């Protein structure tokens, strides 16, 4: 089973890497990172803060765009090109197929994130001439961004397992936006009573809690990120992604592919 998943994941990775759109996005993100020192020049006293904010936001936004737009086409493209049928006609389970696809895209995102992180640290080195201990703190924020990506990929897969690519993109994007307001939703739920309160509470737990996975502003000011938050965020993201991916597998199992 592991070998089959690995083969599907590797092929998904290879396919994504061949995609020119992906390179354009990564190039554009790196261009933004390179532009940060220039933007800092027309401001006062925020060169380093701006470099961190701009670079990490670029990594996050482009990573989310890749997660959604590549994620939604993972299954639909295979069906459309009819390449799914020869795969499923072999001893490959539908669950293995979905999980392999998921791992392949997560691997692609990991490589992209590493490349963009390298670009960011290079820009930081050029700007500050030296690294400090606080610069290592930025890695935690980047790790959290990667956790965001694995959640979004799982959601994109879930939506693409039952709807068209356009709707899947819309749903995934909406979940991302709603996820950044998860805290507000919970606060709203706490203020509401009756059925509205129950609905608001349910919604606040269904949408991914993405706000805690964005600590860009905090690390830009060298603020300490507690180890407990790293642990909680890791477990939460893995569990949420597992739940969404399981949902995708359940739907895909029942889907009529004839």
């Amino acid at each position, binding site marked *: 089973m592991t070998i089959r998943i690995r083969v599907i994941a590797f092929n998904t990775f290879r396919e994504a890497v061949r995609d020119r759109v992906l390179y354009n996005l990564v190039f554009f993100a790196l261009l933004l990172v390179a532009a940060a020192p220039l933007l800092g020049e*027309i401001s006062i006293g925020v060169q380093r803060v701006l470099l961190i904010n701009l670079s990490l936001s670029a990594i996050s936004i482009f990573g989310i765009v890749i997660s959604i737009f590549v994620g939604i086409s993972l299954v639909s493209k295979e069906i459309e090109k009819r390449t799914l049928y020869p795969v499923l006609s072999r001893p490959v389970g539908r669950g293995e197929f979905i999980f392999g696809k998921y791992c392949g895209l997560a691997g692609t995102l990991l490589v992209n994130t590493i490349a963009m992180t390298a670009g960011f640290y290079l820009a930081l080195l050029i700007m500050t001439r030296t690294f400090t201990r606080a610069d290592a703190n930025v890695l935690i924020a980047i790790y959290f961004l990667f956790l965001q990506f694995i959640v979004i990929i799982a959601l994109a897969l879930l939506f693409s397992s039952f709807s068209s690519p356009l709707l899947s993109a819309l749903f995934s994007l909406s979940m991302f936006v709603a996820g950044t307001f998860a805290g507000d939703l919970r606060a709203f739920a706490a203020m509401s009573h009756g059925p509205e309160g129950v609905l608001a509470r349910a919604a606040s737990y269904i949408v991914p809690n993405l706000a805690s996975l964005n600590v860009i502003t905090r690390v*830009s000011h060298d603020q300490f990120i507690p180890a407990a938050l790293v642990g909680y965020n890791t477990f939460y993201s893995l569990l949420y992604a597992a739940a969404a991916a399981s949902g995708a597998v359940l739907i895909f199992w029942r889907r009529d592919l004839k």
Partner: protein
Amino acid sequence: MSRRSTISVASGLVVSMVACFALVGKIEAAYPSSPMEDVLFISSPEFVKRASLGYSGLLADIYWMRVVQYFGRKHQRDSKEYKALTPLLDITTTLDPNLVVAYEWGSTFLDQPPPSGAGDDAAAVALIRKGIRNNPNEWHLYFTLAFIQYLGQHDYLGAAQSFDEGSKLPGSHPWMKVMAAKMLTEAGNFETARYMWQNIYNESTDKNLKQNAELHVASLVVDQEVPKLESVASEFARHTGHNPSSWRDLIVAGWLRSIPVDPTGAPYVLRSDGHVVVADPKKLPFITRGKPE
């Protein structure tokens, strides 16, 4: 499509676009659009923060850039009004409550009298107090508050308290304690102000802040020298019965050794009525004495 038609269509496109560009200028002159500089499309800081989708740090940096550019443009035009400055700073610091530089510089932009700034002490103090609430361990913010209370509001007691509170924070500079004491004993004299600006100059690593402090030190030197030179000229007039016509009269009479120069290296101008002014007041924007009328 033939080559000829391609060339004709492409030429048509280029000619039409160039004509459009030229016409936009004419239309603008005939029907001018309202100036955008003081327009804030979204004025609610909380809304902007929510709409940032978690990228509030980046948006704060962009707003801060806008503050700097807005202030710079207005300052360059010797503007007396900085309408959008307070709301822009409010949005910036709500988006990123830890952007200390925005409180420090923003309050300076607000505090300095026009045309060097908005001349709004109350807004400057409100901004810096917001900064202290969000960053209680930043001694620089207490220093900036004390600085505004001292120079802008002449609230020496309040300034002494702020210097004292800031001096207790970790990493604060020892001269904060000295300033707290000076505020209670000799707040109104030039030497105290000069001491403070000199310390800002020595401590600062930011080239803009250093330059600003340098200009203030130079302006204080002028504020001290001009009355002295004017009193020499009036003494001369009392003795001779007429005002000196030039510095040379005072040098020949032994009242001065050489032509006095201001901190920029330019000679002071002695007017026929005995008043002394600087040659180029733009180079010394913070002087209160020696300004040509």
